[in-house]
């Protein structure tokens, strides 16, 4: 095959397939914003340091600025536009609204996508850098404010809304737990 600098790719975004031709240099972030008009995902540093561009790829939070679009095929991508169920906001979105988890809002889509994944990672029993005992026999750590701050540390907020962000994530996590237990009972 002769070298080529562009490809036709099919991206699965929020349950919808999009086929487009991309220069290989195009990041998933730029494809979302510039080509597919999904501008909820924000470009902050474009270097993987601020978390504003966080989306979910196969359910895992990912910085879309370091993810090449051409390498994003055959993966399920969820952006902030795809986390609500119709008119019903995701519990994390509702908690950010109710508890003022933002000021200017620029980092918020990334914060929300990240928080959704943090709650799932914690529910799956993943330890963090502040977990005292990471051995499986120690059991999963409680999702304390310290745990939330550590797990959310890849999302910077220039306005400094961190206090409310931690509260919003804690409330959404508690609601998710109650919901799961309710469904199980």
């Amino acid at each position: 095959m002769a070298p080529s600098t562009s490809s036709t790719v099919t991206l699965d975004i929020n349950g919808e397939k999009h086929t487009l031709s991309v220069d290989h240099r195009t990041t998933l972030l730029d494809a979302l914003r510039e080509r597919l008009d999904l501008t909820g995902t924000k470009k902050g540093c474009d270097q993987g340091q601020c978390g504003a561009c966080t989306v979910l790829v196969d359910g895992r939070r990912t910085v879309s600025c370091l993810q090449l679009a051409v390498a994003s095929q055959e993966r399920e991508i969820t952006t902030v536009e795809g986390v609500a169920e119709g008119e019903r906001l995701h519990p994390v979105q509702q908690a950010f609204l109710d508890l003022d988890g933002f000021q200017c809002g620029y980092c918020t889509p990334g914060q929300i996508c990240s928080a959704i994944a943090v709650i799932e990672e914690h529910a799956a029993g993943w330890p963090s850098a502040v977990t005292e005992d990471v051995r499986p026999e120690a059991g999963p750590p409680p999702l304390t404010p310290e745990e939330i701050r550590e797990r959310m540390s890849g999302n910077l907020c220039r306005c400094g809304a961190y206090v409310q962000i931690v509260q919003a994530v804690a409330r959404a996590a508690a609601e998710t737990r109650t919901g799961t237990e309710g469904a199980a009972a």
Partner: protein
Amino acid sequence: MREFDYRRADDVSGAVALLGADPDARYLGGGTNLVDLMKTGVERPARLVDVRTLPLDRIEPAGDGGLRVGATVTNSDLAAHPGIRHRYPALTQAVLAGASGQLRNMATVGGNLLQRTRCGYFTDVTKPCNKRAPGSGCPAVQGEHHNHAVLGASEHCVAVHPSDMGVALTAFDAVVSYESADGPGELPLADFYLPVGDTPHRETALPPGALITGVTLPPAPVAARSRYRKVRERASYAFAIGSVAAALDVSGGVVRDVRLAFGAVASRPWRAGIAERVLTGAPATAEYFAAAADAELAAARPLPDNGYKVTLMRNLVVAVLSELAEEAAR
């Protein structure tokens, strides 16, 4: 960014064939370091061979209680693995101490070992750097070097290796497996990184075009009581200014077995073999821990602005080993 060809490899031998002997081609794993370096022009590949979807994403038993970790296992999956957390807890702690949740979901084990230094002169293409542009000089020696190497460096390069994972893997005698055009091979992590000397641009002993396929952790009962402690300039999401991976087996107040490796002090994760020899068979007390650290750090050659690292590492060794000894006494 330079334009590039992109290929996705179907299998390991196909990946190696696609890369071939092309010095302008690179393997793409999670991309968290490579794509960033391509944006800044430090890396200018003409072809990327995507290896992320290769079937190297499993963690499997490797005889007598060891584990084999595939090269495309993500940092997140490595850290969360029950077997790793149970047998090598310091490895989970090291991985979780690095980067952010998002980056750990993307980054791979193979890529972690091959990530490049974050030295500000290396990442700035307008500056000289012997690692990026051989022979152009090292401004860090006279310039900004507060987070540069104190062990094993040379006048040609004083950059540090940024990996946390690699420090724990080094303490536990991990062995890197690779595939090259000449077939499969293995390199103990102790021999994986080359001495800096006057060739800082040559970083590993991997044959040209080789693809890392996995990392094997040999059985190490001592690792069940292990810790990773990282010091950084903010509480989270920053590279280390010094770190220690340690494992300790104490019985009757005497050190039976000890593993010790340092991070952020050298061009590679630094196995503190001198300290280990001093400690083995010695009383498990803070006094001996300090003497062992001093023996290891006797070779330190700090620059004007990073002498603090020698004291920092000494204190870290004493603190972490003391905690492990207390835990053993409980």
